[in-house]
């Protein structure tokens, strides 16, 4: 294989590809990127961690000899990163080595044969639909912070996607770590009807989100089965295994009869929470909120760090009471809410609280209070 490529093109593609590659691998070939050069002048990069696979296609400046080879993804990426801008990079693989040449620099990298490179068998992906990149960004940004990192609860380590017929056909995305739940509801795109419930793993979500930054307003093609999902974003194709597990019936934790309503400016609220949380211990981050007639008092008492209190304006006319929340959880949610006024639907100090902009908003959050 021998091909020449612009350094900028090489760097951009490798930056996508190398982040799929795990830093530490017990299987050597998983550290490598598969490079395929075809006679029509296309260059294809592929990387995998066996659960997630990315394929990126770009135009080479020239392909002298079609062929394929695998080399260390991180090493090649580092080389591309350090080469001077505007340079042309020649990749020349022969006799178990690949020569990388640009300007006066020359590198010789060890290779592994192409045939050993594992490719995820996609199988049939019967459900196909499109989402605008902006819609996918919305789904991810408004839910991903709630994804669980507890490996024992692997079925919570991703975003749950499912369709439903509420008052209209919808596509819903939900994530939870057991303490908070985030859900976004969108109109069901054409082609998504009858799709199986799927849990998209966190790593796939992370890589997808990076690729979306470069997509602007374009559409993203999504194809899936019960076990695999594929996102096509122009020249990049991300394929992931889905989490083989059952997402809990999260509708059970969305309160429907919380009768105490607080309306509040999310920015002022967040700033107040952030300020009093300065005193909270790093680990618990508990903030107490006392509600009475249009007066919201945030407070933190820490045996080591002292006390803090702040009054925040809000619209509240139900019976007064106190409730505690993890400040970090609250700030995560407030940071993702749009609008000048948001609603907190409360029941009592130990019941799940519903947070949203209003009943028309696409995003909805449920937060379990803390004992304070």
């Amino acid at each position, binding site marked *: 294989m021998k091909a020449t490529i612009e350094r900028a093109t090489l760097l951009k593609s490798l930056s996508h590809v190398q982040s799929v590659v795990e830093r530490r691998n017990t299987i050597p070939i998983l550290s490598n990127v598969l490079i395929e050069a075809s006679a029509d002048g296309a260059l294809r990069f592929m990387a995998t961690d066996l659960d997630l696979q990315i394929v990126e296609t770009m135009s080479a400046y020239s392909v002298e000899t079609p062929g394929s080879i695998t080399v260390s993804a991180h090493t090649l990426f580092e080389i591309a990163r350090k080469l001077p801008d505007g340079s042309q990079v020649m990749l020349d693989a022969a006799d178990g080595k690949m020569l990388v040449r640009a300007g006066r620099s020359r590198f010789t990298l060890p290779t592994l044969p192409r045939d050993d490179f594992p490719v995820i068998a996609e199988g049939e992906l019967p459900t196909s639909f499109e989402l605008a990149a902006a819609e996918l960004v919305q789904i991810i940004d408004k839910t991903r912070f709630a994804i669980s990192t*507890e*490996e*024992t609860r692997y079925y919570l380590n991703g975003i749950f996607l499912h369709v439903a017929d509420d008052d209209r056909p919808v596509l819903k995305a939900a994530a*939870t770590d*057991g*303490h*908070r*739940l985030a859900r976004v509801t969108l109109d069901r795109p054409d082609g998504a009807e009858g799709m199986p419930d799927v849990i998209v793993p966190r790593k796939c979500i992370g890589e997808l989100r990076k690729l979306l930054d470069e997509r602007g307003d374009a559409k993203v093609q999504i194809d899936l089965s019960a076990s695999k999902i594929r996102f096509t974003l122009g020249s990049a194709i991300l394929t992931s295994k889905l989490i083989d597990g059952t997402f*809990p*019936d*999260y509708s*059970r*934790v969305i309160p429907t009869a919380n009768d105490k309503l607080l309306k509040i400016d999310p920015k002022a609220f967040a700033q107040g929470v952030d300020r009093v949380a300065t005193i909270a*211990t*790093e*680990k*618990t*981050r*508990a903030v107490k909120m006392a509600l009475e007639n249009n007066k919201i008092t945030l407070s933190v008492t820490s045996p080591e760090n002292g006390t803090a209190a702040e009054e925040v304006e809000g619209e509240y006319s139900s019976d007064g009471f106190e409730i*505690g929340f*993890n400040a970090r959880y609250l700030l995560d949610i407030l940071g993702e809410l749009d609008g000048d006024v948001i609603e907190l639907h409360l029941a009592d100090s*130990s019941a*799940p609280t519903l947070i949203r902009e209003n009943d028309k908003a696409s995003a909805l959050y*449920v937060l*379990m*209070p*803390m*004992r*304070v």
Partner: protein
Amino acid sequence: MGAGAPIANCLQRLYLLRHMADPPDPQARKIIHIDMDAFYASVEQRDNPALRGLPVAVGGSSRRGVVAAASYEARTFGVRSAMPSVTALRRCPDLVFVKPRFDVYQQVSRQIREIFAQHTDLIEPLSLDEAYLDVSSNRQAIASATQIAQLIRADIRRVTGLTASAGVSYNKFIAKLASDQNKPDGLCVIRPEQGAAFVAALPVKRFHGVGPRTADKMASFGIVTGADLAEKSEQWLLTHFGSWGSYLHGAARGIDNRPVRADRIRKSIGGERTYGEDIWAESALRDALESIADIVWERVERNEAQGRTVTLKARYADFQTITRARSLGQPVKGRSAFGQIGQSLIDQILPLQNGIRLLGLTLSGLSHSEDEDEADIRQPELPFG
């Protein structure tokens, strides 16, 4: 009535004191001791079906390794926790060694502590898999502590897929003994009126704090059971067992007034061993220290603790006891660093002027994950059901 009544009363009281040292008390506390069954090993068998039914030891199989936990299958071969892996393999050649996954045990531990927290705030965790609960008054106002224990055991099984044994009684000492009574997956209730009799029948070596050496010492005085111990006066026990005598005196009568302390923060983790023959040789001393370091470090990992001070304790043949300590600017990083510091402290007591009969190693200055534990208990789960 005449003059006989006070004497009769007095005799009756003496009788009561003699035979019912701990009369039933309507104000008695309700204490539950919960202990997960073969915790680490059961978690491994839960997560890896191929291990089920096999003798499993969690720990390192290397020459220096120690068994951190043994499955019930392994226990039938005599494999016990804190046993050197080499010994364990000799007793059970088919023993399967599994590397511990403390992060998983920690997570399961959080799950069970959340279950406890549904009933009471008075939780005193002893380790990841064991805790005392005072349910004298409890959140759901359930009158029967036995019922609470059953609810907790059922919840633990439902949430974690693991079994726990529970002891229900009126103090910590007996609750802990009771939880051991019907293991695994068992429940044992010792009522206040049964306490003294239960303890009387018990071999003293099952008393908390009575190790093989103390048991031998007690046997030399003819003390084998709780009843034997109860015959000794408090003064006699104080003379022979030091300040511990008071506790023993009460314990022998089923009395233990130690409260369940939810705020208990461990200040140190350590271990010590008394040797049958005094140690004189430097190499034997260093080997002895390494094996203590193994056991202590396993406890440190089990508690996810971090500490900066290592203390060596040595007792000479003439009972003179000395300690040597070293503190670092940051927590001790691992088992090998812990051992190295221990060995450097040994350097300070060499050359030996006298034989060593006891050696101990302690890690203190702990900066625990207590905060995290507290955060987890204070932050309940959404009710997914």
